[in-house]
């Protein structure tokens, strides 16, 4: 009964936040809620009842399959880390006056709503319900960005809402198309993904492609694909770091998830190769734009945000290859990217508190003597950076390697271009880290900067995520492999 479980968690959490008297209690409620979601996801996976049918779900509009539960698990883990981190981080924001005390409850209400809405999106069998949940995540996360009530934040939030929502309307038109296709093929229209997938082989090519293009526009905007990526760097750079981690590690996934679902349907039709070409073109363009935008960046969070854009593009390229092997590593890349981005943003948040840089996308980070002041955050950025540029033995290396192998089999020229672009992105990241982190002042000179005492609640999530990254890279759990293989079978890519 996943739906009642999600609803109960959401209602209890909201009630808890309303009753809570201070920041610590509100934060505790959010941590418990996220942990409860981890528990729900793990218990579903262990129960072996996935894909669950009606009885275990509670409604014909919803279902649970391996992809959904996998995404919920990733989201819940990132949320748990980010919520623990928020304990110390939000205290800092309150102390510095960046977050007003009056907005605190609103912040935690939005936070506590976001995870249940995400879970509902990942459980929705009906694509229109998925669309609505995805729209709600845009609205709620825009609130989390605007909460700091600096003009720049409101600006970024409005830009995010407008770009994502206008594009998502195209997706909805695409779903209307899908509904009509299924009605003309089966007689009774349905927007249930399971029904659409089973009937997909009978869908006419032109209509399926038109539906895919429309749906792609919306979810591309949601996941920051070129040319709709412009909101992403600003929103991710200006949001509070705990929120940035969630935005990048969880919310981008929802766009990719939507694209994967609809691509799985189109993959069964004659339009499959045209759709793959579309994904390939936009994937390459996105990686290219992101790689070249990373170079001139002087702001750490914006650099990390552009790296998210790059990775989303890379996932599209992996989807375009669409062999079972590439699909396996695409699904794995989603996990690896989420964990890495959470690590990077949480570490960047510690540096932000230390150096008091404004939460702005234009401000140049004034970082120096980083190993003296914040060694953990520095190592978080360095290791996270090594992971995201694809160094062995970290997890992203494997996903990048195997997707590139697939791309090479498709076209050696494209492989070459891709390698160059990835190299540029890696150099940009490395250049930034080396120049910024090697900046030192003589011991006597920087008396004005008091070391920021990072609370344990901000350190623990970074350490946990770093350990998780290393574990993911060197140890492939049997369960992990079988879940991803099940996902590919259920998406009918095998």
């Amino acid at each position, binding site marked *: 009964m996943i739906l009642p479980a999600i609803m109960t968690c959401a209602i209890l959490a909201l009630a808890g936040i309303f009753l809570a008297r201070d920041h610590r209690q509100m934060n505790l409620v959010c941590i418990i809620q996220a942990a409860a979601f981890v528990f729900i996801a793990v218990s579903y996976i262990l129960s072996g009842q996935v894909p669950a049918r009606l009885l275990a779900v509670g409604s014909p509009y919803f279902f649970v399959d391996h992809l959904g539960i996998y995404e919920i698990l990733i989201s819940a883990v990132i949320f748990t880390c980010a919520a623990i981190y928020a304990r110390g981080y939000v205290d800092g924001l309150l102390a510095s006056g960046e977050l007003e005390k009056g907005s605190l409850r609103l912040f935690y209400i939005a936070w506590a709503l976001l995870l249940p809405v995400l879970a509902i999106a990942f459980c929705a069998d009906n694509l229109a319900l998925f669309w*609505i949940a995805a729209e709600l995540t845009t609205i709620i996360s825009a609130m989390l960005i605007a909460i700091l009530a600096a003009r720049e934040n409101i*600006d970024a939030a409005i830009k995010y809402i407008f770009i994502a*929502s*206008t594009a998502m309307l195209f997706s909805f038109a695409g779903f209307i198309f899908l509904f*009509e296709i299924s009605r003309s093929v089966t007689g009774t229209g349905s927007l249930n993904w399971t029904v659409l997938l089973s009937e997909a082989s009978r869908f006419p090519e032109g209509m399926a492609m038109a539906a895919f293009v429309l749906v792609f526009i919306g979810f591309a905007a949601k996941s920051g694909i070129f040319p709709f990526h412009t909101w992403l760097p600003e929103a991710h750079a200006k949001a509070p770091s705990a929120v940035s981690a969630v935005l990048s590690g969880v919310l981008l996934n929802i766009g990719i998830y939507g694209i994967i679902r609809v691509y799985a349907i189109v993959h069964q039709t004659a339009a499959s190769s045209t759709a793959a070409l579309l994904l390939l073109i936009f994937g390459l363009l996105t990686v290219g734009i992101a790689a070249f935008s990373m170079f001139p960046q002087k702001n750490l969070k914006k650099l990390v945000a552009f790296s998210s854009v790059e990775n989303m593009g890379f996932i599209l390229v992996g989807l375009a290859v669409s062999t079972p092997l590439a699909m396996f590593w695409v699904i794995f890349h989603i996990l690896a990217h989420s964990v890495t981005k959470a690590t990077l943003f949480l570490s960047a948040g510690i540096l932000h508190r230390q150096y008091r840089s404004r939460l702005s996308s234009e401000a140049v980070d004034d970082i120096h003597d980083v190993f003296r002041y914040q060694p953990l955050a520095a190592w978080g950025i360095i290791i996270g950076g090594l992971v995201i540029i694809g160094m062995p033995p970290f997890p992203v290396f494997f996903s990048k390697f195997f997707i590139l192998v697939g791309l090479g089999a498709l076209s050696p020229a494209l492989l070459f271009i891709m390698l160059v672009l990835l190299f540029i992105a890696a150099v940009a990241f490395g250049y930034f880290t080396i120049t910024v982190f090697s900046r030192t002042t003589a011991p006597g000179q920087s008396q004005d900067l008091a070391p920021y005492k990072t609370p344990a609640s901000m350190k623990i999530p970074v350490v946990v995520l770093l350990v998780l990254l290393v574990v993911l890279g060197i140890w492939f759990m049997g369960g992990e492999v079988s879940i991803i293989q099940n996902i590919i079978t259920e998406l009918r890519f095998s």
Partner: protein
Amino acid sequence: MIESSLLAEIIKIFFICIIITAACIISSRNLLSVVSAYALQSLTIVLIAISLYLMEGSGVILAIATVTFISKVLIIPYFITTIQEKIRIKRDIQFHFLSPTTSLIISIGLMLLVYIALSRIMAAFPARDTLFFFGSVLGISLMLMGMMVTFSRKRALTKVLGFLSMENGVLLFGLFVTELPFIIEFLIVIDLIILVLLTTILTVGLDSTLEDYHRRLHRFHLVEEPEGTK
């Protein structure tokens, strides 16, 4: 009972009305008239839905018409007008990339493009009559025109209206292409209302100074009073 051929003619007249309101939204510099054009556009869609109900007798369409009337003809325009009075912006004379005339010419081009594209795609369908085809062409065109407003206007409030007009396009498209379950249409309206609420509240933040903004938020009880001032 009215004859369905007559109803089809009436619907065609309503199509013209929608194009006129869309042109108004694109070109008008006066914010109030943009809001009324939007309300009128929504009303026209309600009338189209009622005519469709008379033709086909489907209860779902009538329900959609009711929800649309309440939300898009009454609530949303009222809300936007109120906000607009609060922030005292009457005119939106700044256009980003496109002047109104260029926008109008581009929208004509867009409609032609949509017509050509859809006539190719729809060829796969079992013969649908021309009314439904025109309805879907107009729906998609309205979406594109709304998008143009969203990206060419400078004031966030006008952008909201562009977005709303896009959503009208989706509704029109949905009405003519297929019949979605009512619950979904209803949820979309809820989603839309939340979205409009949030964006307009944020808009107030953009168009006034921050201290002012916080005072207003307090007045609307959106944030709590700081401890000690209660």
